[in-house]
């Protein structure tokens, strides 16, 4: 019972702050709403039996990525002027309508086919995830991600530097 209460309150919090990310006109407030979304998603990961992903979510997303976002927002000193409506007035209605259509369509598919009974006693501990990650199935992919991170590092410096 407690699990269900926690799940639905964190789900509501995540959805409400996600609406805040989209509806907010000041990008700094959007970033702060996004941090609330990420933290409540971390709680939901924990409730779904994935403590490793929950910790990773807080450390990588809320810790590293959002700090990067806020850092760039502060660095660029964006003026807080209102965004003009302009030709986007029509687009706004179309986007919201298409979003609702997408929710109804995919929601109907999930409602029709998504009745899986979760097996009991499932717990994705750090140990079991690490054993799979470092097994021969995923080891080379894992090593490839380190190359990806290195190239992203070099690329970010090369792009943001004024004259290399």
């Amino acid at each position, binding site marked *: 019972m407690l699990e269900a209460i926690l799940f639905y309150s964190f789900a509501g919090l995540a959805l409400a702050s996600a609406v805040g990310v989209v509806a907010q006109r000041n990008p700094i407030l959007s970033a702060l709403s996004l941090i609330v979304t990420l933290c409540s998603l971390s709680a939901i990961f924990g409730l779904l039996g994935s403590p490793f992903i929950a910790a*990773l979510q807080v450390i990588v997303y809320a810790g590293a990525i959002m700090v990067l976002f806020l850092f760039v927002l502060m660095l660029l000193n964006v003026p807080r002027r209102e965004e003009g409506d302009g030709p986007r007035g029509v687009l706004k209605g179309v986007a919201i309508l298409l979003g609702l259509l997408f929710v109804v369509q995919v929601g109907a598919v999930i409602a029709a086919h998504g009745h899986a009974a979760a097996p009991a006693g499932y717990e994705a501990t750090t140990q079991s995830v690490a054993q799979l990650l470092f097994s021969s199935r995923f080891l080379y992919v894992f090593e490839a991600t380190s190359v990806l991170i290195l190239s992203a590092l070099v690329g970010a410096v090369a792009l943001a530097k004024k004259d290399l």
Partner: protein
Amino acid sequence: MTFPVQHAIYLSLGLFTLGVVGVFLRRNIITVFMCIELMLNAVNLAFVAFSRAQGALDGQILVFFVMTVAAAEAAVGLAIVIALHRSKDTLDVDAFNTLKW
């Protein structure tokens, strides 16, 4: 009584849709980036929920890789935003139309 895993998929659907709508609605390029992060998180939630429903751990590994790609994407993307801001002095997505005919 606990919650059905299906409801986590519904939450993932809602968050993903909000991210898509945000990409269409927002004009500030950094807010558009944050909406992309929102979509990536919705996908992560779907992976974890399916992993839970199947009782398999592969979804957790995929979430790990998605997070890695998201971190790399954020670093490179924000560097591009800084370079764009330097050349045009604005963050409005409609101002960057050099490649558009």
